[in-house]
């Protein structure tokens, strides 16, 4: 599948605070890419950089094969987004709001296009009503209409279910799946809820404290038989060097010990591999499954070292 979005070594600092730290990932055409992390993990900052709301401190963002910094307008013509809550002009009607943002998106606006879009989100009958009279769910639906009115190829949704009731959440989930399967859209969707992301995303990126924790196919990442294993050796530097040259290199991170994401059944092989290379293995401690790991982050009940593949 062709690459739609490539982020390389993206970093954002606010004074001394590092909100996003050397983040790299790619999103392919047709992906529903789940962007997962607890509140304050750096998801929104990353998404704001993808939408050119925030200037990165360093790193590059490439969308549709072009550099965002250089071709901002051309790229944003093909991008639709909802950032957290749908912020709209409360003193204007749904139709007026949609018309304003459609015109800003660079498309030729006709009454039919706007009404069809409002029809799609179930607001055609309230087209003339002021947005200030809308419920949160209705505002969210109008926000979706605004994000989709110019038929973008890439849709970026930052916490799109925030503030929605259970029915609204289900509707949003169905819409994302519909846009992906029927519309062939590429979607980046962020959330702090694993349960939400695992239903809709085919690929997942987990970040914590601005750093990538894990990235990969949702089915593989959320495989319950996979676990995070911490290995303590007499010489972690040497052991890491040996593992980097092995088949486990992509599953490895060294930070206060060696941390690997691996199948439980592979633990004896890794230990044997290290012993063969004269590494003194002091301890092997299974930490969590990735799911438990993420839950521990979001529940703030525990923490393990950042993990990356």
């Amino acid at each position, binding site marked *: 599948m062709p690459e739609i979005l490539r982020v390389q070594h993206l970093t954002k600092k606010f004074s001394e605070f590092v909100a996003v730290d050397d983040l790299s990932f790619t999103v392919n055409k047709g992906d529903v890419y789940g962007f997962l992390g607890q509140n304050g993990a750096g998801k929104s900052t990353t998404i704001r950089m993808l939408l050119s709301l925030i200037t990165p401190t360093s790193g590059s963002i490439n969308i549709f094969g072009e550099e965002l910094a250089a071709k901002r307008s*051309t790229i944003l013509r093909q991008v639709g987004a909802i950032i957290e809550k749908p*912020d709209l002009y*409360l003193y204007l009607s749904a139709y007026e709001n949609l018309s*304003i943002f459609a015109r*800003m998106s660079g498309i030729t606006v006709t009454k039919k296009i706007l009404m069809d879009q409002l029809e799609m989100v179930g607001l055609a009958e309230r087209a003339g009503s002021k947005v200030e009279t809308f419920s949160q769910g209705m505002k969210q639906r109008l926000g979706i209409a605004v994000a989709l009115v110019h038929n973008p190829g890439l849709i970026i949704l930052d916490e799109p279910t925030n503030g929605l009731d259970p029915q609204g959440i289900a509707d949003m989930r169905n819409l994302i799946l519909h846009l992906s399967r029927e519309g062939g859209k590429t979607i980046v969707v962020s959330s702090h809820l694993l349960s939400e992301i695992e239903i809709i995303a085919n690929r997942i990126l987990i970040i914590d404290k601005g750093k990538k924790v894990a990235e990969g196919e949702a089915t593989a990442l959320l495989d319950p038989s996979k676990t995070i294993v911490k290995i303590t050796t007499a010489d972690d530097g040497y052991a890491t060097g040996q593992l980097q040259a092995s088949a486990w290199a992509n599953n490895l991170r060294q930070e206060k010990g060696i941390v690997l994401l691996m199948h439980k059944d592979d633990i004896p092989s890794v230990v044997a591999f290290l012993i063969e290379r004269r590494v003194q293995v002091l301890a092997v401690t299974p930490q969590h499954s990735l799911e438990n790991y993420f839950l521990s982050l979001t529940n703030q009940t525990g923490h393990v070292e950042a993990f990356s593949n």
Partner: protein
Amino acid sequence: MWKLFQIEVYKIFRKPRTYLAFAIITGFIFLIQLGLLVNGKEFLGFMLGTVNDMMEFNAKDILNGYWVCFAILNLLLIHVPILVALVAGDIVSGEAAMGTLRLMAIKPVSRAAIILAKFFASAVYVFLLLLWIAFISLFVSLLVFGSNNLMVAKVDDLRIIETGDILWRYCCAFGFAFIAMMVVAALALLLSTVSKNSIGPIVATVGIVILCTLISEMEIPLYQKYIRPYLFTSYMLGWKGFFYINYNEDNETIRGSIENLPAILKSIGALLAYIVLFVTASVMIFKRKDILS
């Protein structure tokens, strides 16, 4: 850019706050007109003071539509900046507070275009506000008080402008006032660009205008020499210059003349420079701004 400008104008005139300014100004002017209609003679007597004892004036001749408009402008042009700030101070920060700014900023339009569209849209608002002031203060006053020669008091003398020589001066004065109010709009835009709420820039703009006006008007040599030339408020009352008419050797006013045109042109130049400075700074800041809210 044209499309953005249209959208910005549309948004300004769909906001109830915009019409508040028109309502306030209308109420003010009607109050002044009513006061002058009922107690105009007494007011004139007070205004002329000792001059009235030395020279004989017919209050009925002086108290005409042109004079009433001149009096209104003298009273109001200090307050209009508040109404300009009410809209221009909210134009960026109001959207930031509402959250719509980030929705605008992710559309395929440049940030410079967003700021310029907002500035030109606020120019439309200022223009229409002044047009409305001109209509009710000049044309309604002419209807109510009638037309006659305009008597203008300067520090050291009184000058009489003939009826047929007045209207163009008002057109120029309102044109000048438009430029002066656009400096206030540009300042409010600049403050709005760096703020996250709408009240801050409005209050700050009004505060700066009041402070600078006070310093401009203070007869303190230190301020007059070193600070006054750099304050935009020092040039904002230049519109009065259009009503200072020249005399010939026979002490008759020269029709179509202006006493000190270079001073007016200098004021216009200075005000335009401030507009360019404030708008450029707004564009530069907004282009680099991280839009978080």
